[in-house]
């Protein structure tokens, strides 16, 4: 059974005089455990598509069904809770909370979920050790390198035990060494723990690692290649 299914998904921005079709009728499915990259030139609709999959932006038309539930049938508050419990996000600019330590940044999501202190502490330690930051748990983001911050962001995305992780250009701000480390970690998590990763990217290194590559152009899927 597919974990994500989109049906005739459309997003039209009607802010300016000329409506812009950012996503134009995408029908696609993602299975559990996929390691997929969405590629395409700037303005092809990658980020918009990812935002809609993540319940951050509502489609103009079409459906997004996650585990059998059409998420845009839910009320706003329910969608927020749904995101918290089912979807992990990794952003291009890491977006960690600067006043919290790495440990606290990861714990925060579990706190929102109402997990016990003991459970939070145990899982945070496991996750940060898993991304190679067991020794930097008490460091604030400004004391971490870009690569380390993005690894904390991955640990944070995993904290809520999501069904899948959406990563919007996760390597765009990283050097090649940090990119390689991050990709290795994500690949390992995918292979060992069967975690589903969907990236939007321009980065050839990410594309190389991905087992499925979906190419968008003008809001339309022009190729969907499984390696």
């Amino acid at each position, binding site marked *: 059974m597919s974990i994500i299914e989109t049906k005739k998904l459309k997003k039209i921005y009607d802010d300016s005089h000329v409506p812009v079709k950012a996503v134009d009728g995408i029908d696609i499915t993602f299975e559990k455990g996929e390691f997929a990259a969405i590629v395409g030139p700037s303005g092809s609709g990658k*980020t918009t598509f990812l*935002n809609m999959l*993540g319940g*951050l*932006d509502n489609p103009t038309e079409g459906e997004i069904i996650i585990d059998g539930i059409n998420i845009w049938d839910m009320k706003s*508050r329910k969608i*927020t*809770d749904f*995101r*918290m*419990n089912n979807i992990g*996000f990794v*952003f291009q*600019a890491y*977006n960690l*909370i*600067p*006043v*919290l330590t790495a440990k*606290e940044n990861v*714990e*925060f*999501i579990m*706190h*929102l*979920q109402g997990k016990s202190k003991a459970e939070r502490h145990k899982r945070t330690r496991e996750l940060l050790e898993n991304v190679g930051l067991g020794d930097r748990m008490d460091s604030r983001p400004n004391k971490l390198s870009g690569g380390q911050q993005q690894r904390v962001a991955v640990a*944070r995305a995993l904290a*809520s035990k999501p069904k899948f992780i959406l990563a*919007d250009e996760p390597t765009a701000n990283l050097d090649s060494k940090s990119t390689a480390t991050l990709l290795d970690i994500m690949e390992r998590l995918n292979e060992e723990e069967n975690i589903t990763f969907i990236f939007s990217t321009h980065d050839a290194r990410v594309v190389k690692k991905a087992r499925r590559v979906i190419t968008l152009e003008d809001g339309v899927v022009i190729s969907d290649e499984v390696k």
Partner: protein
Amino acid sequence: MIWSIAWKNVWRSKLRSLVVMTAVTLGLFAGIFSSALMNGMMEQRIKAAISNEISSIQLHKPKYLENKEIQFCINNADSVVANIEKNPEVKAVSKRIKLTGMAKTARTGTGIIIYGIDPEKEKNVTAIYSKICDSTSLAEKRHITDPSVIHNYLKDSCGTYFENARSNPIVIGQKLAKKLKVRIRSKIVISLQRVDGTPTEGAFRVIGIYKTNNTMFDEINIFVRSKDLENLTGLDSTKAHEIAILLNDNEKCKEVEKTLQSAYPLLNVMTWQEIQPDLGMMTEYMNVMLYVFIIIILLALGFGIVNTMLMVVLERIKELGMLMAVGMNRSRVFKMIMLETIFLSICGAILGMIISSIVIDYVADKGIDLTKWVGGLEAIGYEAVLYPSINLTFYFGVAILVVLTGILASIYPAIKALRLNPAEAVNCYIVKLLYC
């Protein structure tokens, strides 16, 4: 954890937070200190009015209040006084003959209120005996430094409170003495009505000149011994127009008033607030005014806080977008921003209250000397040295108002944050910030 994040966020931009906190501190200090000054001034006025002028409670014949005629007396005043003295809340009682009349000298004359009193009993109720003269300033004015000379000189210039008095002694206010151009041992003729309705006159010799901090009071109130007034008016010694009561605790006025009113239903029992409604009203009015004053200050500070918090929201659009994206619901975002605002306000407020309390304590001990404006202040019944005073309840009230200000000031920035679309906010670049 939201509390912890909010607290840490306050210190994210230390300088900006400190500027806002300093504004709150200074604003509250100014507000609390000014309130303490106004409150202290009012308390001094009430204290002086009770101790020098009206006492805590007074009893009259109801008709006397409508028409201050000599015949509207309280009968068996001595037994009423003896009864009232048994009440444990009562500190002292004094019966008074109180008449209106004319005071005349060879040069001039003026309308006065004349009190016939028992000086020893009156001493326990009002403090006029202690206002016989401002010894220090008078001696200083005349450059007299020798204590024995001062004593004799003062006795000569201001007199005493019925000490070693011969026949018909009279104690008058300094303002009246100036008006009548009299001094110690000068003769004053008092004209009033006898109990049978016929006019009468009596010559009195000035034995003491008092000076309170209310020149209006000093100008019209004069004191003589009740027996001298009884001789002059033919009034029975068992009668009195007024019974003045001083309580141990003025807060219990209403309680004692009730007891006395039920014990003496034919008499009119009045508390100081009823005797001088302007003072009573002032107490009520001042309580409201102090809070209005603080609210105005907090309102002004509130706008500063709103501005700061708007900047905070603007600067953290990406972060707020991320928080909403990962599942922080609107109520939690609102709570976080509200807590930040409250922390910001409360830190400044605590500091402001501590500084106010220290400064008020210090100034309340030393007093603020406004003798430069003594004439003006005393003309309206206020003392020239002010002692700020404020009670603990006021601080609690201010603390609650500060929290309310924090909550109100957070609403607009929080609404701005809640309106953010997480998808747009997480991708909000610096260039776009202004339009977000």
